[in-house]
């Protein structure tokens, strides 16, 4: 290994294999982690990254292969053994108990106690410190998790893993719902931990992040090692080639489209959960980006437009008509929403992919009152092909998919729905580089077909690469709005943090 | 001309008689069971004892009758939970050449061979007279009913209430719409709550064992034992004790052992071609502290159930 700290590895995994029924998730994977090393684990959606890390943490048992921690054999029989072995993990799907408070979640499984009775004061102090360190002193320790936004939850999750004081810290897409600023702070934390000798495995589909923070990389493809090496000196294109097996030319493919008449007019809209009224306008064939920090109010705005939250004041006009404010009539009016909370309100995890993809538009398959299952399955399969969803078939349950592939299923549903106005809330969360490019192309084509797209993202490069206009949210209101060409990363950041354009 | 398969030498298979009570857990049914077994022993027949899954569930009793018909038995002794609902299954049985003797509670129509029972109304009358004479015709009375829809206890309640009305107009009723419910615990609570309001009541009547026992516990706990005149129905060791202690002033007793015995004997007689009576009254007896030592009362109060353990 070309690790900078070339001493004995703290972790080595040898010829690890894992199957789920007929699916081979991993086969013969080797992985080695040096002390104080930041090791990026990369690969397409469904490549096996999360599975490998779950094996490391003890959440899954490997079918074959061995592991060793600091030279000693390691075969955890459960997450507790993993945690005891010094492995702390941030799972891709958040592992928080919604009814419990921030404090309780952070301490979960490791409650400081005196003969069974909880001792809280010291832990509370440390949690508060860590939250402040992560730049979120506003997150209250006694706030139940279910009242927090997805981004805030991610911060809580990170706080927990930091307080673990583990030797090996695994982060499975920790930044997928973090803003740039929060990501930056996380990197500072990672560098500090690294200096203290903690080894970190970092999974992300944001390659620029990887370049900024990682020392070495390992790429998985279809459950096998595809290559590894030092980050320094390896060009991005090479890593991408290892991931997808072929060179990728265009990361932000552009499709020509031209804004037309106003499609969605939001005027002084204030939803039940919004801090301030919002006014915005979206035209046919236009992609409007919404930037901002966690809690800036973008999600709440989309929800109010879609009729998910009650409306206190203001109007929403779609193609000039008001319509009732509930999801059903909004869908009838041609709106479609992709939620940022994939598992919470995106997928029906126990249902089949076909069900998930076609759920919002079943009418076309209705014949004499009955559903034509053959056509429905065929349509679902077609969308799965189009979106390159890696799964065994349209009948399998959504729960068996990898995180990125689940996200693609929700996207497929929205496209299948043929909505006129698409409200995307972090649509590319957890999606690999290659597929992202594909999705951007799709969005471009949708715009070219005269649809309007509201694109919420905390990943500024994609906003800059895809949108026609970008509005920046700051504390519940739109602080600034300009054509995409007039924005840069820095300007967006400045507007999002200060509220001044 | 029925052939006698039960006692004919050379035919090895003894008669199989299904005895279907309304429930299986009350003392009363244990006694019926004992009587039935007694008869079976003497007559050399086999008994299948099978009550509905849930005590006092009409629909389930129908199911039990259907199932024993399916199984194939020579005769059925049935204590019907309903005088209408059980008609059809009994008809089915008779049509399948399985004769049915009805015990304990009546069944409408005539599709059975004999009816062996207590006069429940008369039992209520006895209780009413006892209560009236205890109180000298003056006082305020609580009646705790058993369960809505239970025919035999409803008859007893009616007998009691009508006797009071007819013969003791000086007695007033404080409550007569409270139902003890299926278990002793529910009876206990109802009685406790009633006594909480009417702790100065003079008399209390309950129409069966579980309600009597539940109410007895409440009376004892409220410190009213011996102060309130209390007439109940049926027997169990605790009730006998209470009678001896003066906590109870009278128990109306049926003769369930006899009922079970006669039920089985009647059907076997019928199967063997003997003549049988259409209607057999097993009698009711009022037992008080004074007469409880008599041999007759003893056999009713503490029936010999040892046969069940053999």
């Amino acid at each position: 290994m070309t690790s900078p700290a070339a001493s004995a590895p703290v972790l080595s995994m040898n010829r690890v294999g894992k199957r789920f029924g007929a699916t081979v998730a991993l086969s013969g994977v080797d992985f080695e982690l040096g002390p104080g090393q930041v090791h990026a684990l990369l690969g397409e959606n469904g490549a096996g990254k999360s599975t490998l890390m779950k094996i490391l943490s003890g959440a899954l048992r490997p079918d074959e292969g061995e592991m060793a921690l600091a030279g000693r054999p390691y075969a955890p029989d459960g997450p507790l053994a993993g945690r005891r072995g010094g492995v702390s993990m941030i799972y891709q799907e958040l592992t928080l108990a919604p009814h419990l408070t921030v404090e309780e979640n952070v301490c979960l499984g490791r409650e400081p106690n005196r003969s069974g009775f909880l001792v809280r004061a010291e832990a509370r102090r440390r949690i508060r410190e860590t939250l402040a360190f992560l730049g979120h002193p506003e997150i209250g320790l006694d706030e139940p998790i279910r009242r927090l936004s997805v981004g805030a939850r991610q911060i809580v999750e990170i706080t927990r893993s930091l307080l673990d004081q583990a030797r090996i810290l695994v982060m499975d897409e920790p930044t997928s719902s973090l803003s740039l600023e929060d990501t930056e702070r996380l990197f500072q934390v990672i560098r500090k931990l690294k200096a203290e000798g903690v080894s970190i495995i970092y999974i992300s589909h944001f390659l620029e992040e990887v370049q900024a923070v990682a020392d070495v990389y390992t790429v998985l493809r279809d459950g096998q090692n595809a290559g590894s090496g030092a980050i320094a000196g390896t060009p991005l294109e090479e890593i991408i080639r290892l991931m997808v097996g072929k060179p990728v030319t265009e990361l932000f493919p552009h499709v020509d489209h031209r804004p037309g008449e106003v499609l969605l007019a939001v005027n002084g809209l204030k939803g039940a959960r919004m801090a301030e009224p919002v006014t915005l306008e979206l035209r046919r064939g236009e992609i409007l980006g919404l930037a901002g920090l966690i809690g800036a109010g973008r999600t709440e705005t989309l929800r109010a437009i879609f009729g998910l939250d009650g409306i206190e004041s203001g109007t929403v006009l779609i193609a000039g008509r008001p319509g009732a404010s509930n999801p059903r009539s909004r869908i009838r009016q041609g709106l479609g929403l992709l939620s940022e909370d994939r598992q919470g309100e995106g997928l029906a995890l126990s249902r089949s992919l076909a069900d998930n993809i076609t759920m919002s538009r079943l009418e076309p398959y209705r014949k004499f009152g009955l559903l034509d299952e053959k056509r429905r399955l065929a349509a679902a399969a077609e969308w799965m092909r189009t979106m390159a969803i890696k799964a065994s078939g349209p009948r399998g349950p959504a729960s068996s998919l990898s995180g990125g592939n689940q996200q693609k299923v929700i996207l497929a549903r929205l496209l299948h729905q043929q909505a006129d106005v698409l409200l995307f809330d972090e649509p590319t969360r957890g999606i690999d580089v290659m597929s992202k490019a594909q999705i951007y192309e799709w969005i471009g084509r949708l715009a070219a077909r005269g649809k309007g797209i509201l694109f919420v993202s905390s990943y500024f490069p994609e906003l800059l690469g895809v949108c026609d206009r970008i509005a920046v949210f700051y504390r519940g209101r739109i602080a600034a709005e300009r054509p995409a060409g007039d924005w840069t990363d820095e300007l967006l950041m400045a507007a999002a943090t200060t509220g001044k354009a | 001309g029925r052939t006698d398969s039960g006692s004919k030498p050379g035919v090895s298979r003894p008669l199989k008689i299904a005895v279907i009570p309304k429930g299986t857990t009350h003392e009363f049914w244990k006694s019926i069971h004992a009587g039935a077994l007694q008869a079976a022993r003497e007559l050399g027949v086999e008994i299948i004892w099978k009550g509905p899954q849930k005590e006092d569930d009409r629909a389930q009793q129908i199911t039990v009758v259907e199932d024993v018909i399916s199984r194939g038995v020579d005769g059925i002794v049935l204590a019907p939970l309903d005088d209408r609902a059980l008609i059809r299954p009994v008809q089915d049985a008779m049509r399948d050449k399985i004769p049915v003797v009805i015990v304990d509670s009546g069944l409408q129509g005539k599709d059975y061979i004999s009816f062996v029972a207590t006069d429940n109304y008369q039992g209520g009358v006895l209780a009413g007279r006892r209560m009236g004479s205890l109180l000298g015709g003056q006082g305020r009375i609580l009646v705790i009913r058993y369960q809505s829809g239970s025919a035999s206890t409803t008859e007893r309640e009616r007998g009691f209430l009508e006797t009071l009305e007819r013969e003791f107009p000086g007695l007033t009723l404080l409550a007569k719409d409270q139902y003890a419910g299926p278990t002793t615990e529910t009876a206990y609570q109802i009685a406790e709550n009633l006594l909480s309001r009417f702790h100065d009541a003079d008399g209390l009547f309950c129409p069966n064992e579980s309600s009597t026992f539940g109410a007895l516990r409440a009376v004892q706990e409220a410190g009213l034992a011996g102060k309130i005149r209390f007439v109940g129905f049926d027997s169990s060791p605790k009730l006998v004790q209470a009678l001896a202690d003066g906590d109870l002033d009278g128990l109306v007793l049926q003769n369930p052992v006899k009922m079970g015995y006669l039920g089985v004997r009647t059907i076997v007689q019928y199967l063997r071609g003997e003549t049988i009576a259409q209607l057999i009254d097993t009698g009711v007896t009022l037992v008080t502290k004074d007469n409880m030592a008599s041999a007759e009362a003893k056999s009713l109060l503490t029936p010999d159930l040892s046969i069940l353990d053999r």
Partner: protein
Amino acid sequence: MNSPNKLKSAINLVAPFLGLILVLALFSAMPDVSSRFLRLANLKAVATQSVIVAMGALGMTLVIITGGIDLSAASNIALSGVITAYAINRGLPPLLAVLLGILTGTLVGFLNGLLITRLRLVPFIVTMGMMGIARGMAKWIARNQKIDAPLTWVNELMSKSPRPSWLLLAPGVWLMIVLAVVMAVVLRRTVFGRHAFAIGSNESAARLCGIRVDGAKVAIYAVCGLFLGLSGVMEFSRLTVGDPTVAVGLELDIIAAVVIGGGSLNGGEGSILGSMIGVFIMSFLRNGCTMMGWPNYIQEIIIGIIIIAAVSLDRVRHRSAA
């Protein structure tokens, strides 16, 4: 390569019936009853006995699929039966009385749905409250007694010796079969059915997909009520009297049948075929135990054990299939 595949698909076909087959095999092997257990007459009896629970299970399956529960099921059956008897007793034409009974059931279900969606209460509490309300109403209407109604064709519905005799099974059994098929089709092949599954699997996702969750729920509880009303009519038909105290605790039997058949109380899972198998597992168990003449307590213990065994068998099968 072909024959093992065939074998496998044969196993898959049989698999859901495993528990039922087990129960049937068990009693068929008992020397005491083996000769009579699988006889037509007994099968007819069991089928007729199953109708009431089965009709309830059809509705309950739907409710459980949405992640709900209906504890008022048994009370609703009693109430609908009482209303039917009351109406016939009052001299209404039997058909009208039957419709009235079904309507009552539907209304109670509708009310459940309305309370659940309007007050945002959990189904457990609403239907538990309704359990007392419906039972109380039934007793009230019947004046705490059973209602004797004159015999009409309604009482033929559950007769084991149906007229015309070529029917072979009671009309109620045929109705149960037809309705089961209809409901199976509704669940698998209609938008309504898909929506029920979606709501049960993830209610907020369903809402996001534009499903009228509240409306669907009200409809689902009403449909469940409709089946319970029908069940009540069948109960009346069987008893020939309207009994307000009947079927106490039957809701647990109905729910058990659905769960034994693969329904999940967390919602999103369940099937009509499964529920019907669950119903028949319970019926045959009871029937067999009674025929064996086992005491009730033994029967209770055995049924308890078999419920657990049947469901765990099903889970093992599922896990090995995955």
